[in-house]
């Protein structure tokens, strides 16, 4: 993974010193609260319902054991002994004090981490496919691109006061696991007919109040043109994006209002004026970054591990976990293991400091010291020898992290909601917990198979509910929490926004309603058909009917 050189290290230290000075200038009145607000946000410091919240960047979700141990320490020293992974693969601490923040930033800088631009109207932490470097059909590891973009977008003099936040995601695979079409810019690495590697550039995706799927504005962008092209897109957005209404300020609205073609035309016009080579990182710099993401020192192993097969035969729980939580690795004899942070009854994405240390130890011992955080709020050990899987699983069992539900109905994405978030209109964590209890039976979950439920506690859609197979949006109606259910969303390369099934439900009625929807699937699926495939084949009607029986019964 990427390591800081002297320049990166100095940059982050200087940023910490700058923030320390900004806090001091807020305290002595040089900065008004209004002036300070964007400065603290760009350093990841939010004011939440009960306290300050600190959001730490985990660029493209890649973490080392040393870094996770430092997060464990911070969680213990400055929070309540745990942290929370978000859908943007960041880590949030919900209880730090403002005056401790500079010290936390120093601790982060010690392990090559920061909070830069995890909030505010600027280019946010760049995300990427969590199976980068592992998936068999990948054209290229997306992380060197993501790292280049991370550096380029850090404290960009021109693009730090944009109309609104701006999110970029990168995938190197035609199979999209990074939800790139729900980002302001989605980049897909692909190979042209003549074998040249470049990018498909998609713009204007986003969830929130007005969900939109990104539109392709460039089918093929040569790699060397990336930074100049991004500069052109951001310049058009910075100049033309709406600033009169916060809810219409994202680039998706601009793309929607002037049309993707016109947007593309303006970008190309600006791009044509730029001197690409004077903006681009030179080939040696690109190679320098890429070298950090070279494959680890894999051993040559047989594809089939006898130890693994034997352990599965002997231990049913392990066999179940292995059948659900493993992802095939391109290198024979290895697997990528998903560590679910969705234990039944826990808050999705929460992890205690002790668990962080346990995971860090396992990664150090069995996965070349590396982890990936996923947008589904789980952790991946990317490079585990099949021979070692049983030992890893035993370690996870001991840490309470061996839940076998990756991709299943209880692997629920949920934002913090009204339990923490000052913008929330309803709770999301308790809904996730109730659903996990309802569907927690292992046999039943396995029978239902792949099904993504995503829950947001307000229209901002941090829980990605629009692209959940089943989406749940918590609103407030005359002082009561009211939950809207959508069906048919899709977060992959076939991205789609889910459609509403009917009127909102009270919190207590949500599990029954979801159960009815699931029962329609179970009754009508054909052999081997997944939930989302059945929804596509059957259409919304049968699900709507079952759902509305529920709302009528409740009324």
């Amino acid at each position, binding site marked *: 993974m990427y390591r800081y*050189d002297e*320049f*990166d290290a*100095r*940059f982050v230290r*200087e*940023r910490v*010193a*700058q923030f320390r*000075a*900004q806090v001091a*200038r807020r305290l002595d*009145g*040089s*900065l*008004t609260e209004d*002036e300070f607000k*964007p*400065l603290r946000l760009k350093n990841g410091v939010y004011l939440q319902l009960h306290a300050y919240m600190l959001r730490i960047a985990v660029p493209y979700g890649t973490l080392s054991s040393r870094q996770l141990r430092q997060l464990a320490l911070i969680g213990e020293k400055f929070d309540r002994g745990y942290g929370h992974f978000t859908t943007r693969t960041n880590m949030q601490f919900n209880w730090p004090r403002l005056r401790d923040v500079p010290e936390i930033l120093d601790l982060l800088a010690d392990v090559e981490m920061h909070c830069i631009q995890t909030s505010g*109207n600027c280019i946010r932490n760049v995300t990427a496919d969590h199976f980068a470097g592992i998936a068999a059909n990948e054209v290229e590891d997306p992380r060197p691109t993501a790292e280049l973009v991370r*550096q*380029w977008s*850090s*404290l*960009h*003099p*021109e*693009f*730090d*006061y*944009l109309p609104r936040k701006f999110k970029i995601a990168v995938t190197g695979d035609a199979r999209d696991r990074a939800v790139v079409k729900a980002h302001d810019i989605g980049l897909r690495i692909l190979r042209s007919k003549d074998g040249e590697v470049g990018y498909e550039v998609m713009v204007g995706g986003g969830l929130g109040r007005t969900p939109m799927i990104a539109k392709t504005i460039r089918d093929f962008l040569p790699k060397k043109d990336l930074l100049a092209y991004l500069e052109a897109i951001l*310049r058009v957005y*910075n*100049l033309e994006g709406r*600033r009169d209404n916060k809810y219409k300020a994202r680039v998706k609205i601009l793309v929607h209002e002037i049309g993707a073609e016109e947007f593309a035309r303006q970008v190309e016009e600006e791009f044509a*004026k*730029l*001197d690409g080579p*004077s*903006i*681009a*990182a*030179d080939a*040696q*710099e690109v190679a*320098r970054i890429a070298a950090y993401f070279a494959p680890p020192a894999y051993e040559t192993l047989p594809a089939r591990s006898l130890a693994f097969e034997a352990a599965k035969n002997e231990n049913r729980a392990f066999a179940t976990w292995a059948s659900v939580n493993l992802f095939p690795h391109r290198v024979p004899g290895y697997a990528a293991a998903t560590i679910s942070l969705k234990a039944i009854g826990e808050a999705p994405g929460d992890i205690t400091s002790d668990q962080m240390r346990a995971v860090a130890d396992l990664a150090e011992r069995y996965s070349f010291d590396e982890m990936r955080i996923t947008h589904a709020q789980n952790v991946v050990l990317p490079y585990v020898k099949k021979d070692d899987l049983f030992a890893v699983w035993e370690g996870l069992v001991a840490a309470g992290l061996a839940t076998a539900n990756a991709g299943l109905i209880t692997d629920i994405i949920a934002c913090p909601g009204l339990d923490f978030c000052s913008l929330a209109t309803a709770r999301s964590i308790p809904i996730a917990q109730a659903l996990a209890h309802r569907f927690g039976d292992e046999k039943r979950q396995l029978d239902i198979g792949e099904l993504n439920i995503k829950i947001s506690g307000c229209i901002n859609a941090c829980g990605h509910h629009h692209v959940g197979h089943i989406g749940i949006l918590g609103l407030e109606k005359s002082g009561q929490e009211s939950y809207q259910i959508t069906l048919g969303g899709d977060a992959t390369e076939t991205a789609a926004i889910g459609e509403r099934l009917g009127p909102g439900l009270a919190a207590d009625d949500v599990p029954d309603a979801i159960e009815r929807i699931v029962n329609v699937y179970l009754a009508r699926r054909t052999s081997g058909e997944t939930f989302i495939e059945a929804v596509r084949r059957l259409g919304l009607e049968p699900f709507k009917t079952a759902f509305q029986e529920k709302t009528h019964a409740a009324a």
Partner: protein
Amino acid sequence: MPLLDRTGLRDDIWVRSEDGASGAEHVIVGFAYLDAALAGNGRGRKIGVAIANDVKASALEPYLEQVELISIAFPNYGDGRGFSIAKQLRALGFKGVLRAHGPLIADQFAYALDCGFDEIDLPDSVALRQPIEQWLAMAGTISHTYQRGYGAQNILDARRAARTTV
């Protein structure tokens, strides 16, 4: 309104006169009056122009050789359009003085300089809270940034230099 640049506070030799009626030697006129001011400028006054931040840089292209100063309005510190306009004007070859006009904060000084501004024309309300020392200090807190083609020393070129000297 205090005027400052990367060396400190400056005296302002320019006079703002929307319609150019002022008889001053250095006059900043509104964009709508620019043609008239230039046409009527028989006696070699220095002309500058003030623009709002929704004016396109390309609209100024015909005037870049004729005006000595362009003042770009920042209605508030959160509105970053002026940074892009400055960058575009420099890319179009404008060699005169670029002035940012409005309630920027000291924390944005480095960005303004990097995007091509020379000076900031600051309202008293901000200058009272953020004296010149803060502006000069904040301008230098980040010694190298990651973007090529912006004013500050950049890390990419520094890395390249380090490679070639090894």
